[in-house]
């Protein structure tokens, strides 16, 4: 063969494999409202930055007529590329090839790019669009999943792992995304479940549609399995790009700093909070009033909205923000919000992102369903995550910080480096009403006018305890600050804590209350 012939042969081979499942299958993929795997990679990565590997990998299955089947690239595209200049490793399952089913070589391509990501110390992005295990390959496809889960676990806390669900992701396949740090879903395209509607119907007699069982809305509002909801694939890719801009490449690095920007001019910060502790406001307004460019990138926006978590920048540096949300369930900690906060705190700690916590909560949510769902065990995750974290920890108490909630929300006692409180802070065991009713129970009961005495006692308690000064007198908080000084205090705290060293007893790993 001449050089020219060899080149022609190469181009033909490449073109044929790059067409995936062929024009028919691509048409079908588009008719389902989905982009092809190649288009997805192209849209997500910087132009011209994608470099593909293992294009000519072939499956080795001989059974059930598979020896006569050609599956281009074995149904998955892998490679490296860049997002806004940040290097990433990426794989995208190709639904046009045997439904994106996972066989041995398909899995080997994925685990190879995962190993690369860990070795190179760059984020891993996995685009999932697969009917599941390739049944013809039997236990080898199960082995493939297992190898992926194992690597997801080893890579956890070493490199950021991002899962994008752009099609079905069912059965065992869901556990790879579940082990990763951030899961993105798109309305009407993403479907995630362990057992599908048909099995549920035959085994349990429960009738439910695929969308209601495991659609994008379900996982971003009810189950919390997914972190980001998008109306389209395009919007989803924009969200991923933004996320990547906030996080570091790996656990040995810090997130890239951005040019510092002041918050945008808006409502003056001191006017956001109603003084009456029972009247709600949106804590995100406070976050936006203090962070760079008022740009707050929220995670898990639609799930457990009684706590708010996400990334922002302070003086150009990425910070992880946790804030009680008085607008929803009065900002209480409960089963779901504890889960949400704890996971986010652990991500920040693993990836050198300083934590900024805004506190305004009445405590934990009372109720039989909460107790029976294990609010003790779940609530403990918040204590664990904050105590364990050694990144700079800065806490700002805005208003209520009552009881167990005060302790849990990164108090001094859990190792906060700096605790600031606004003059509106109320740091106490409980709210004045509850406290007065307990402390003065007998006096109130014995009084000729119990309501008048109760009112007076509540007033007394409020004056004495519903403020930050007792906590300040005991050194539990470091400074009472003006709301307008908040940004300055946080930026300074992060600066002076940038090189903090906090040692922990040697251990293999802790045992968080999972």
């Amino acid at each position, binding site marked *: 063969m001449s050089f020219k012939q060899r080149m022609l042969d190469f181009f033909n081979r490449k073109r044929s494999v790059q067409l995936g499942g062929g024009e028919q299958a691509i048409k079908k993929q588009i008719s389902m409202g989905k982009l092809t795997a190649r288009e997805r990679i192209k849209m997500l990565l910087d132009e011209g930055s994608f470099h593909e590997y293992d294009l000519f990998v072939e499956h080795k299955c001989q059974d059930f007529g598979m020896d006569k089947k050609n599956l281009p690239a074995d149904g998955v595209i892998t490679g490296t590329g860049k997002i806004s200049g940040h290097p990433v490793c990426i794989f995208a399952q190709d639904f046009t090839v045997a439904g994106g089913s996972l066989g041995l070589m398909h899995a080997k391509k994925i685990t190879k790019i995962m190993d690369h990501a860990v070795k190179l110390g760059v984020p891993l992005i996995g685009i999932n669009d697969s009917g599941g295990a390739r049944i013809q390959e039997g236990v080898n496809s199960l082995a493939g999943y297992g190898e992926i889960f194992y690597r997801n676990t080893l890579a956890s806390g070493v490199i950021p792992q991002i899962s994008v669900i752009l099609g079905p992701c069912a059965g065992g396949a869901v556990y790879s995304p579940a082990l990763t740090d951030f899961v993105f879903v798109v309305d009407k395209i993403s479907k995630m479940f362990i057992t599908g509607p048909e099995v549920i119907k035959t085994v349990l007699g429960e009738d439910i549609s695929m969308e209601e069982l495991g659609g994008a809305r379900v996982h971003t509002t009810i189950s919390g399995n997914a972190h980001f909801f998008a109306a389209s694939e395009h919007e989803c890719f924009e969200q991923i790009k933004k996320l990547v801009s906030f996080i570091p490449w790996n656990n040995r690095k810090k997130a890239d700093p951005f040019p510092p920007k002041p918050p945008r001019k808006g409502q003056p910060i001191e006017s956001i909070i109603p003084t009456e502790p029972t009247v709600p406001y949106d804590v995100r307004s406070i976050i936006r009033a203090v962070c760079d460019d008022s740009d707050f990138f929220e995670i898990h926006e639609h799930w457990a909205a009684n706590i708010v978590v996400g990334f922002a920048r302070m003086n150009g540096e990425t910070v992880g923000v946790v804030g009680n949300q008085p607008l929803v369930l009065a900002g209480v900690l409960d089963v779901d919000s504890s889960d949400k906060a704890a996971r986010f705190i652990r991500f920040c700690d693993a990836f050198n992102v300083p934590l900024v916590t805004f506190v305004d909560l009445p405590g934990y949510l009372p109720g039989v369903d909460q107790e029976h769902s294990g609010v003790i065990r779940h609530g403990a995750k918040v204590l664990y995550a904050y105590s364990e974290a050694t990144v700079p920890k800065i806490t700002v108490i805005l208003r209520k910080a009552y009881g167990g909630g005060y302790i849990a929300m990164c108090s001094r006692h859990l190792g906060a480096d700096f605790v600031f409180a606004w003059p509106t802070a109320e740091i106490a065991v409980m709210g*004045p009403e*509850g406290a007065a009713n307990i402390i003065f129970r007998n006096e109130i009961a014995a009084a000729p006018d119990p309501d008048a005495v109760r009112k007076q006692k509540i007033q007394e308690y409020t004056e004495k305890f519903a403020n930050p000064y007792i906590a300040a007198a005991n050194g539990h908080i470091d400074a009472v600050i003006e709301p307008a000084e908040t940004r300055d205090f946080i930026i300074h705290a992060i600066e002076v804590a940038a090189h903090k060293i906090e040692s922990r007893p040697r251990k293999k790993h802790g045992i968080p209350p999972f």
Partner: protein
Amino acid sequence: MNEEQALKRLVIDDTVYETRFTPKFEKRKPYVAPNPNLVLAYIPGVIVDIHVKPGQRVKWGDRLLILEAMKMKNDIPSPRDGIVKRILVEKGQMVGKHQPLVEFE
């Protein structure tokens, strides 16, 4: 995804807070104390056999009925000694989780 919601009232430690509810909180089921006279299905499935009749005296551990679920035939044993008052299901019937199956006197 962000529908505006009216503020509701949430009481914690005698203080009434104005706030929104989450969809999950809205849908929570009020706690109902278990009725000791009822035997409930612990898993959804199909009743494949019934071994007792109304009026029958049974002992703790006696087989009441068989509930097939997840391809397994599960014995539903009597949780106590007593007299069966009513059988609340029929052979072949599909039952949901926590559905009452047998009532004791």
